[in-house]
């Protein structure tokens, strides 16, 4: 028993954009619907019109020179199953597999996950550490932005009315780099993150100096965040357990978690330290492993 709404299934992206434009701010894009439908049921979202972006060619994963383009309507099942993702971005595969359960992953899309902009969004930390760029398209313009500029707050993004998140470009990571995603929820599946974390490590040729590191955390701030101070701490230093532990402490200090029904702010901060350390360590092992990014 959902609130009544119009439904449009455009035949191509331009028609979808036109439909959004025509129906004004009440129009909403629907992809997987796993977030939108419960919101409509709860009457927290009352779209006047749904514009379906499935079947517009936005559900492919293609490898191009230097990056991989992931369509926003790509489901998490497709991501988890994709050979390209498995081979090149295990961190993204881990995040995709951590979402909901099989049924959810068969419907939910990466674009939808990002656009819903809940702080516990599992795909964002992985995309942060992969330095992904999002392409947003409206009838007037097409713009590409770094993923971390996308979020503005809980359930708020930079998407303008009548603008669609169309695809995500993920650069191919450099050699000697690795990344990993970890999540702690309240059970092993079908759960929202209490904290999720992703990290990537790129080692110098000597195999022990950290050339670059990125750390991202979710559910500990109004939006997913980059722990830049912790990253800076790691850069140029020789890898050691002590260093990683310190970076994890620093990263935890960069968060601003809230206490809610799922966990207290204190617990979330504690988990940040553990998850960042573990994610960094895992990423480092992958970086050492060479081709296993």
């Amino acid at each position: 028993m959902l609130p009544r709404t119009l439904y449009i299934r455009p035949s191509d992206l331009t028609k979808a954009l036109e439909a959004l434009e025509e129906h004004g701010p009440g129009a909403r894009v629907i992809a997987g619907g796993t977030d939108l439908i419960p919101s409509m049921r709860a009457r927290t979202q009352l779209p006047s019109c749904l514009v379906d972006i499935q079947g517009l060619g936005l559900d492919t994963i293609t490898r191009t020179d230097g990056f991989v383009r992931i369509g926003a309507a790509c489901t998490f099942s497709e991501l988890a199953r994709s050979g390209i993702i498995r081979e090149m971005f295990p961190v993204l595969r881990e995040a995709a597999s951590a979402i909901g359960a099989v049924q959810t992953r068969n419907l939910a899309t990466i674009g939808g996950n990002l656009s819903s902009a809940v702080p516990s969004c599992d795909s964002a930390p992985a995309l942060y550490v992969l330095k992904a760029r999002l392409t947003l398209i409206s009838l007037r313009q097409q713009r590409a932005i770094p993923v971390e500029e996308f979020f503005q707050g809980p359930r708020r993004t930079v998407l303008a009315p009548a603008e669609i998140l169309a695809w995500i470009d993920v650069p191919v990571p450099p050699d000697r780099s690795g990344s990993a995603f970890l999540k702690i929820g309240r059970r092993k599946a079908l759960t929202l993150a209490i904290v999720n974390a992703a990290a990537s490590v790129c080692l110098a040729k000597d195999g022990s100096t950290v050339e670059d590191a990125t750390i991202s955390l979710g559910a500990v701030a109004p939006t997913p965040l980059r722990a830049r101070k912790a990253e800076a701490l790691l850069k140029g230093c020789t890898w050691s357990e002590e260093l990683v532990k310190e970076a994890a402490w620093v990263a935890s200090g960069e968060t601003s978690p809230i206490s809610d029904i799922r966990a207290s702010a204190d617990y979330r901060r504690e988990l940040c330290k553990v998850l960042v350390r573990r994610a960094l360590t895992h990423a480092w092992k992958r970086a050492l492993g060479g081709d296993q990014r």
Partner: protein
Amino acid sequence: MKKRGKGIACMFYPIGFTSYPNPGSAFVKVNQDGTAVVFTGATDMGQGSTTVLAQIAAEELGIRYEHITMVTGDTEKTPFDLGSVASRVTYIVGNAVKRAAHEAKRILLEVAAEKLGVSPDGLCAGDGRIYIKGLPERFLEISEVARIAQMGKGRPPIGSGSFNPITTFLDPETGHGKPYGAYVFATQIAEVEVDTETGVVEVLRIAAAHDCGKAINPMLVEGQVEGGISMGVGYGLFEEMVLDNGVVKNPQFTDYILPTSLDMPEIRVGIIERPEPTGPFGAKGIGEPSLLPTAPAIINAIYDAVGVRIRELPATPEKILKALRETDQGKA
């Protein structure tokens, strides 16, 4: 670091309502082809009681299980039953069904006795036949006996039965009395692994040894135990309906956490059978008791693993980690 521990919990649990009379009743009719219908008010909400009651009727009548039809859960078509509560159906309604079946069988035995030239007490029913005790080759098919009883002798083989455990109310000042007819017992041992950095608990294994008098249907008994354990895992680790000034804060499965298939441990069930003299074929019950020892066994295993005692359920990772930190500080 991950640390492992084992915890034990024992329990005893009564079968049937506390003090109040809680009768069950049943009607049985044997058709002239030797099939039978059992009418009882007991309702099966998933626990398998109707199947168990059919087995009891089949055994008592000596009729094949497949030839028993159960009519249940209709207040107009069936005699009174107090309900599928208090782990009482196998014990109480089982006895009622057994008594009703016994009464119907008595008619069959009397009719068969005349044909076989022995006294009814010298006869047995089993495998769809009525035969002379110790001389199974001298028998009559129940279908034949039922036909003769009904159409020849004009005595339809029917029976009714009821059962109510003998109980008393408690003295209001001392609490003394006999509130229950029968008791069951159990012990569970849980083995857990606790992540000392996150407080996350993984239940690795649970052994569940349950006395149910006699397992009329071992597969269903195991199912009750396994299901009870999943509810116990939820009770111990996950589930909590949060009320804030009377408002439920988590009225959805999003934030009311039930165990999924990935959260359940390996379960090893052991059934202890020491027949209860007042139970049907020695059976008692299993429904509720199965969940009882699980949560404390897990909490005790957490204590064994990391030395912290959780006094408020559920034992969330957050509570465990907090307790761990307090213990560490206590040591420092």
